[in-house]
């Protein structure tokens, strides 16, 4: 039997979590205990999923792997269960794409790295989880910390973009792509791409890139390492930490939601040289959030056609947006104040929205995306701050209740709120753990 040395403290930790299958006399006496890996794995654990991984790891050949009992030599510690574990086991809605031709709605799930497809009429007043009709989930899917999602009703395909952990767009198909499946095709993208929008007539896709403050455009069928056919980037563009994107083919425009952060990013990867000549250094800046509108044919450092920005607009970390070409309106998920703001499509400057959906009755909590349905006169909102999406009449305004709720977890399930957290600090005064996203 392979054996794993567990120090007294670890045995104590096991005792604290109720792992009473261990002999803890040694721990009580302050001496070193031994417990086999098999025993450890057989014990109760606070994180069942983690234990499943451990069991799989134990079955693998261990030559050179750090899961091996033998490495590092003579070190204390090893495969140790956590005393406490904080995570959200449920999906969290992020991007949303609506297909009124085939009556589907597709959500990206940043927390569990999955795509969920529902009937367009899904949801209601139930407190229970709404069952998706299709769920793309698992390592073969290549889904990471995904953000925006797009749908191609004609080809019955849906797209999503990895914002982190695998810089690529993946494309899946209706019906057959369910579970742990490989994408139909993939396209490598710049790091921190956030949203994707399809122009079916031009046969192009557009992608926002946060860290480069750019919009990259590709042929719809581009795969692998195909290069963008053009890129809109530079100081004059006023693209600043761009997120949501809509490709308006009717007016030949690209509409973008910007958070307002700007820095002249320079190469930083471990494969780039120590110094890179990118010209004069320009400092970072905080600008107000804005919606910028760009010519779809723009290429390079081209100013926007118009911008919505200012106190009256009330933009606050605007995320996904959608455009209603029938009524000439732009709807944007305003994450910072948990609202949805609707503007005239042609507005510019410091203008008030024509409608605002906000308030406790709306159940809008940390919205990340919206979708407008002019065929069925509905407005969809995907909440990141709650395990829900909420559906309103298209012209709803103020503090009103949604007509339907789609749940990816039982009602009142908390959300940790993580979006690829990768650092921590401990606040000794308040006895708190601090985690940035």
């Amino acid at each position, binding site marked *: 039997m392979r054996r794993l040395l567990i120090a007294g*403290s*670890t045995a104590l*930790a096991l005792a604290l979590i109720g792992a009473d299958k261990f002999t803890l006399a040694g721990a009580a006496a302050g001496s070193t205990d031994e417990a086999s890996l098999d025993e450890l794995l057989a014990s109760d654990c606070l*994180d069942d999923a983690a*234990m499943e*991984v451990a069991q799989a*790891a134990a079955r693998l050949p261990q030559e050179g*792997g*750090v*899961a091996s009992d033998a490495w590092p*030599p003579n*070190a*204390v510690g090893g*495969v*140790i269960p956590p*005393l*406490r*574990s*904080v*995570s*959200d*086991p449920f999906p969290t809605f992020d991007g949303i794409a609506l297909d009124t031709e085939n009556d589907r709605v597709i959500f990206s799930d940043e927390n569990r790295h999955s795509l969920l497809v529902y009937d367009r009429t899904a949801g209601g007043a139930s407190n229970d989880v709404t069952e998706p009709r299709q769920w793309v989930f698992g*390592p073969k899917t*290549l889904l990471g910390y995904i953000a925006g999602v797009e749908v191609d009703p004609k080809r019955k395909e849906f797209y999503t973009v990895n914002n982190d*952990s*695998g810089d690529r767009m993946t494309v899946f198909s209706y019906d057959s792509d369910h579970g742990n499946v490989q994408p139909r095709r993939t396209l*490598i993208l*710049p790091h921190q791409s956030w949203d994707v929008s399809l122009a079916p007539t031009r046969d192009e896709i557009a992608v926002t890139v946060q860290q480069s403050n750019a919009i990259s455009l590709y042929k719809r069928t581009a795969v*692998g*390492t195909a290069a963008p056919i053009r890129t809109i*980037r530079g100081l004059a563009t006023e693209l600043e930490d761009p997120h949501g994107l809509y490709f308006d083919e009717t007016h030949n425009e690209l509409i973008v939601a910007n*958070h*307002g*952060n*700007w*820095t*002249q990013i320079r*190469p*930083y990867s*471990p*494969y780039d040289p*120590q110094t890179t000549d990118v010209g004069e250094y320009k*400092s*970072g800046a*905080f600008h107000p959030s804005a919606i910028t509108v760009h010519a779809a044919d723009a290429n390079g450092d081209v100013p926007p056609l118009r911008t919505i920005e200012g106190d009256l607009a009330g933009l*606050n*970390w605007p995320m996904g947006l959608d455009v209603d070409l029938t009524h000439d309106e732009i709807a944007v998920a305003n994450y*910072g104040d948990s609202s949805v703001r609707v503007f005239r499509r042609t507005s510019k400057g410091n203008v008030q929205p024509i409608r605002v959906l906000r308030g406790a009755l709306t159940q809008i909590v940390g919205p990340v995306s919206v979708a407008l349905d002019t065929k069925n006169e509905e407005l969809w909102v995907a909440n990141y701050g709650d395990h829900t999406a909420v559906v309103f009449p298209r012209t709803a305004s103020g503090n009103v209740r949604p007509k339907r709720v789609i749940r990816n977890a039982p009602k009142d399930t*908390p959300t940790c709120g993580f979006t690829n*957290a*990768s*650092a*921590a*600090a*401990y*606040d000794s*005064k*308040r*006895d708190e753990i601090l*985690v940035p996203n």
Partner: protein
Amino acid sequence: MFARSANGNVAPKRVIEGQATNLSRTMHGIAYDGIHDEIVIPVALSGAVLVFKADSTGEVPPLRAIQGTRTRLVRPHTVAVDPVNNEILTADPSSRAIFVFDRMANGNVAAKRVISGPQTGLLDIVGLDVDPIRNVIVASSRKGNGDKVGIFVFDRLANGDVPPKQFIGGANSKLAHFRQVAIDPATGNIFLAQQNTRMKQMEAYVLDKPREGFKAKEQEEDDDSDEGRLDQMGFIAVYAPDDNGDIPPRAIIKGPGIRMAGAAGVALNPKKKEVITVGGNGFQTFLLPEFFKPFRKPGGTALPR
């Protein structure tokens, strides 16, 4: 901000977010200043370091913001605070530098000291901490060719293009794809969060431009994933303050507990002897008193039992 005792699927006690905070949704580091009760945080997408009152909540502006042409900040990734010597440190992989600012710096101010240049060996600097007791700065940095991938220890007052006084890295160390470092102030023990044991892969793009000659490895797993391949699991490694060279860690947390076998962040609660690890959209707390004891034999491999 979560209660230390948080366990399971719980909501944070407090959140600082929104336009007025000047934060973004892309932040890779954080430090707490226990003497002045402040939080320090880098904002990668606006070339800034922000300082907040530690009891802040909601959409509140920072107390101070370091940003501007004199700062030379581009994409600050990680931060540390030295409340004893009144300094804030940040490492910027785009600038390839460690910047040391006065703790009260605000606005467009120059760094007091900058550690950068070929002799430093620094490149993709992803972790940083400072030990005011032993007067050292500890940074984790990666080079794509496998050379100088590891932990760099500099004199706290180092300035300019200077070599590290210690370096931990090499084949025996298994250090490859890591991030945050943390120092236990009592012992000087150095903690490092490693996501997996495979070197970070080359990105297909240099910012928004396709990398010349890049060949994609289709269907390969994401090297940034915290759920890395089981035979390339990450770990939390612990070293003694004087450790140097191509050596394995003296203490380790490995396996599924560290967020499905890899962690990007690590923080310490020395009073309770707890190690907090972050990754994979979650965090874990481990109770490990042995990890907070000094090594009796510098250069040895075993902790006292």
